């Protein structure tokens, strides 16, 4: 069984009472909908019988006339009553099945995050944000329909058709049978058309997605376009994309419209069939004018479920495809487990190639972090061979270790491994609690305070906390700028901190790292966006403030490395030690110049 169907079915069984309620409501709705032509029939027949009893009399016998008025009044009352039943049915399915749509959307989103939160880091490296984003928003939006609205459309279509046929058969089995033969043939005719439309729709959606992608790419490169005079090439590319999508979309619309003459044609054939069979039935007096009218009405009504058939099929297909995509992430499974189990456990890399053992430090007075036989793998899928290490080193509390090395030698990966977010590595890490300052500072949308506290300090906020925050901001020389912002600590920072400069972002996240007060600080090029003057000032502050903490700092700026007690040079793997040494020398010279 398809995993999507299985998931859907399990969900429905779990909530069977809600779905049963929805089913009944829909039944009620469909019955009342099919009743309208019957009321027309009854009215016409009532009047017609009355007319034929008293042909040509306008005054008529008062008794039969008042009888007629009575029955008309009853009909009207019954009609209104049916209307109320329809009202109840419609409210009913919305409160059950439409609600189920929203609820399942909520459920799928939370489930998705619970999986994503514990996926291994390599999932996030390969430009996967867009992919995850489309599953989280577009796919969940589409998939949740399966749990409610799509179900409603299908059931409504089926009930309506069944009841309409039933009503026709009750009036005249000949007309019913004739229409049934016509209608049953239509889905076969529509099937190919629906499939074609679905395929074309998918194609146009992917054209649109790549257009939007191109547009994003274009905007990200706007400055180099302007500076390099290449706008023309970009615009031409976008122009092509827009035209391609327009032609794709027009094709979908045209295919979709071809369904219209098929269904309308079918209903016209039905009407013709009803006319022929009805003509005989009228002749033999089996039905009256009212019956004839009702048959007509049903024959016309039958086109609406047919018309929706193509939509129903594609809605179902799309919903299932989306649900499969959502479940795919859920089934990938997390290798990390829950956050509590990260420390002190053996974590497996991809395909169990590497093993890394993390243990707490025993001698906390002397050692803050100790690394034994650590080999870091690049872990980018599809490639092998990039390795750094084996590395052995230890850092004592209060000691600063600088790490330098040429581009791509694995400096950042080493820090990420120590921080416990990169798992493609082997060896042993003994460490106290670490705080990691990544190369790219990450600012969440929210206030300055929220960004600094990040859920950590918020529980018991007092004046002491504010003092701590200001002290941290002062250390990174950001206090003045925050004070000048409207709102100070409560100033709102937008997504990605776009209302901060690169340097401000770096300092803010550095202050955040300081506030964690962990014994080990890992900093990856922490001050790279600042001018040297500010850099030196902050370094001085940091050295004063972080007296008891171990610091591991990646940088290639001599001015920064000078502040470290020891400098550790990373090469491009174990293969070229000689070259490393030569580079080391060059660096030593650079340091002393």
């Amino acid at each position, binding site marked *: 069984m398809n995993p999507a169907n299985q998931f859907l079915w399990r969900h429905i069984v779990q909530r069977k009472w809600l779905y049963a309620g929805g089913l009944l409501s829909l039944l009620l709705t469909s019955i009342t909908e099919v009743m*309208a032509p019957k009321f*027309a029939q009854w*009215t*016409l027949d009532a*009047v*017609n019988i009355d007319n034929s009893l008293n042909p040509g*009399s306008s005054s*008529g016998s008062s008794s039969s006339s008042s009888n007629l008025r009575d029955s*008309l009044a009853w*009909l009207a009352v019954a009609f209104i009553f049916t*209307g109320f039943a329809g*009202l109840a049915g*419609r409210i009913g399915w919305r409160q059950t099945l*439409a609600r189920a749509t*929203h609820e399942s959307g*909520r459920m799928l*989103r*939370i489930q998705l995050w619970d999986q994503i939160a514990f996926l291994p880091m390599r999932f*996030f490296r390969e430009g996967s944000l867009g992919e995850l984003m489309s599953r*989280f928003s577009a796919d969940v939006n589409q998939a949740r329909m399966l749990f409610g609205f799509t179900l409603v459309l299908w059931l409504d279509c089926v009930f309506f058709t069944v009841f309409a046929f039933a009503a026709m058969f009750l009036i005249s089995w000949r007309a019913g049978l004739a229409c049934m033969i016509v209608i049953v043939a239509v889905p076969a005719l529509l099937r190919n058309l629906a499939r074609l439309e679905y395929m074309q729709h998918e194609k146009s959606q992917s054209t*649109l997605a790549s257009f*939007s*992608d191109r547009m994003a*790419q274009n*905007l990200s*490169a706007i400055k*180099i*376009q302007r500076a*390099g*005079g*290449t706008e023309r*090439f970009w615009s031409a590319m*976008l122009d092509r994309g827009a*035209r391609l999508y*327009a032609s794709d979309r027009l094709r979908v619309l045209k295919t979709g*419209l071809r369904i219209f*003459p098929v269904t*309308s044609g079918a209903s*016209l054939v039905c009407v013709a069939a009803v006319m022929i069979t009805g003509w005989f039935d009228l002749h033999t007096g089996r039905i009256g004018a009212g019956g*004839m009218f009702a048959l007509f009405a049903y024959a016309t009504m039958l086109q609406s479920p047919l018309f929706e058939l193509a939509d129903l099929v594609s809605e179902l297909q799309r919903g299932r495809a989306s649900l499969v995509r959502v479940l795919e992430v859920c089934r990938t499974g997390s290798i990390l487990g829950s956050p509590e189990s990260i420390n002190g456990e053996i974590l497996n890399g991809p395909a169990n190639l590497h093993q890394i053992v993390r243990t707490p430090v025993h001698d906390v007075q002397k050692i803050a972090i100790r690394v034994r036989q650590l080999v870091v793998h690049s872990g980018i899928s599809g490639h*092998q061979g*990039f390795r750094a290490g084996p590395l052995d080193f230890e850092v004592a509390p209060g000691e600063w270790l600088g790490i330098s090395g*040429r581009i791509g030698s694995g400096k*950042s990966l080493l820090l990420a491994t120590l921080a*416990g977010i990169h798992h493609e590595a082997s060896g042993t890490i003994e460490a106290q609690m670490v705080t990691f300052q990544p*190369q790219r500072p990450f600012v969440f949308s929210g206030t300055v305070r929220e960004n600094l506290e*990040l859920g950590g300090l918020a529980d018991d906020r007092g004046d002491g906390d504010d003092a701590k925050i200001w002290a941290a901001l002062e250390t990174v020389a950001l206090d003045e700028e925050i004070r000048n*912002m409207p709102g100070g600590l409560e*100033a709102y920072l*937008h997504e*990605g901190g*776009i209302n901060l*400069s690169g340097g401000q972002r770096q300092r803010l996240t550095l202050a955040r790292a300081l506030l964690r007060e962990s014994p080990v600080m890992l900093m990856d090029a922490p001050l*790279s*966006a600042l001018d*040297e003057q500010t850099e*030196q000032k902050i370094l001085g502050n940091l050295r004063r403030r972080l007296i008891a903490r171990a610091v591991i700092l990646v940088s*290639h700026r*001599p001015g920064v490395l000078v502040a470290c007690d020891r400098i550790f040079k990373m090469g*491009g793997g174990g293969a070229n030690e000689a070259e490393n040494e030569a580079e080391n020398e060059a660096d030593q010279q650079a340091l002393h110049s």
Partner: protein
Amino acid sequence: MKLKMKLKMKRTNKPYTPESAHNRPVPDAVGIRALWNLAGKSKSAMGLAAAILMLAAAFATTASWVMGIGIDAIISRQWNETLLYGLAFLSFECFGVALQYFGRRRLAVVTTEVALDARLDLIRKQASLPMSYFDQQPIGRILTRLTNDVEGIEGFFGGTLARMMIAVIQMISVFAGLLMLDFRFGAITILTSVPALVLVFTLNAPVRRWLRIFKYHSAHVNSLFAEFVSGIAVLRTYSLEAWARGRLSKAIQTQFEAGMRVLHWNSMVRPAAVFLSALPMGWVILGGGSAVADGTMTLGTLAVFLRLAERYGTPVRTITQEIQVIQEALASGERVHEMLSEKSATKSGSLRAGVSGAVSFKNVFLSYAPDTLAKSVLHDISFDTRPGERIGIVGRTGSGKTSLVSLIPGLYEPHAGQVVIDGVPLGQWDMEYLRRQISFSTQDAILFRGTLRENLLGFPGTDFEDWSSVEGACHESGLMDLMQKDRSGRFNLGLDAKVFAGGENFSSGEKQIIALTRALVTRPRILILDEATASIDQKLEVKAMQSIGRLLPDCTCFIIAHKYQTLAECDRIIVIDDGRLIADIPSGSEYEVRERLQAIREPVSNLV
């Protein structure tokens, strides 16, 4: 730069509330006018489609009328006439269906054209907007204009408008049919349809607001999710998974509740609209039946009334649904229209000539918001350079160095003074032509998703002849060396190596090397390096600077840097402080330069 940041903050630093966010309500009239303008030259074509649909509806109504006469014939048992009317009915219906098909097809073609035109207009527009437009708002918002909002407009013209048009035409044809059959009775029937219409137009108003709030919360959930995914490294190192889950699930719950509010309302209003749209039918049963009994109406006419009254429900349902989503299209239309009416950058001149690279600033003032009293970013800057000269620019963060060099390729317009290249003011040059001879590389190396090759060219596509210059540039910048030494496999495809959005799969040093290579590919006459080598290790940097001298001996270079090593080969060093040019020092030995800079003290005292 600092001023620009402040400006940005002023523009965007409003508190986030559902009402104030990007979902601000647009008055209907404004939105409708915007959409009307977007329809542009297709309006008459759209009118033609509407006329065809109108004719189709007229045929359908006539068919119903013929059916009424047919039913009268049945009752008077005139069988041959019945057959005749039956045939007439069928052929009218057939015509109606055929016309409707053609009308809808026509409409689809026209609306697709409207959407395409809007897209093309926006593409042209964004290519002509000044750089300051992009500085002042988040890229995400502009992207939304160019994608989601156009899709919203497309959905409106291709879906909502078409369906509304058909519904209104249906309704009008039903009303016209009712009135023509029997004016008095028809008028009363129309009156009974009023409650449904009133309900649709009044009770739907609040739902539009709630829908807007729902959209806002959905956007919030999505942006929160995107944020947490991109910040996953921070969340993990700080063990904040549970905290993030809490925030996200709270946002999802809020979104759910907003959705439920819309649902609760709709679960009352929509069934009520359907219920009320049955009133005419009820009236026809009661009043029409009596009229036939009184002999003031034939049975056939009653049948037509019943049929028309029954048909009234469909358009009401359509309008109830569409009127809620129309708000979004109006807002999208207004936003797109707003972007289309933004002021374009000043038209470029037409001079195309070989550039020798003599750049002069003549009393240049620059302010990012000239109308306000804000302090200018550059203040009365004047200097001249010879072709092939190397100018180092130093100064504190925020002193105006980047703004200064941004004026050379005309990214911004000075609000007073002139930038002159080869004796010709910037405004007289054909900017595109001129810019092809200028290269500009910044500290935040700009890389876009694509291949390494595309990134080196600066645009996607491979229609480029001079590959030897690309390879030459790779050698000179040190990129080739980097690629050969790299063991991560990222460069396995050579120039076709994949580059992720923002160059995320490369370290900042690697990104700078790639951007530097790009700057060399076009063999520019003027080269601007804005701390372009700040993240590259010293050895590579020195190599790169030397090879620039070799590769581009006659190129005028502007180099912003904090390190003396970067400026070692400069002919002159310009010192900028607080938007003013405070010193212009000729080159000399390192010692001499340092001595002179020391004399100016503060701004550059830390140059190492």
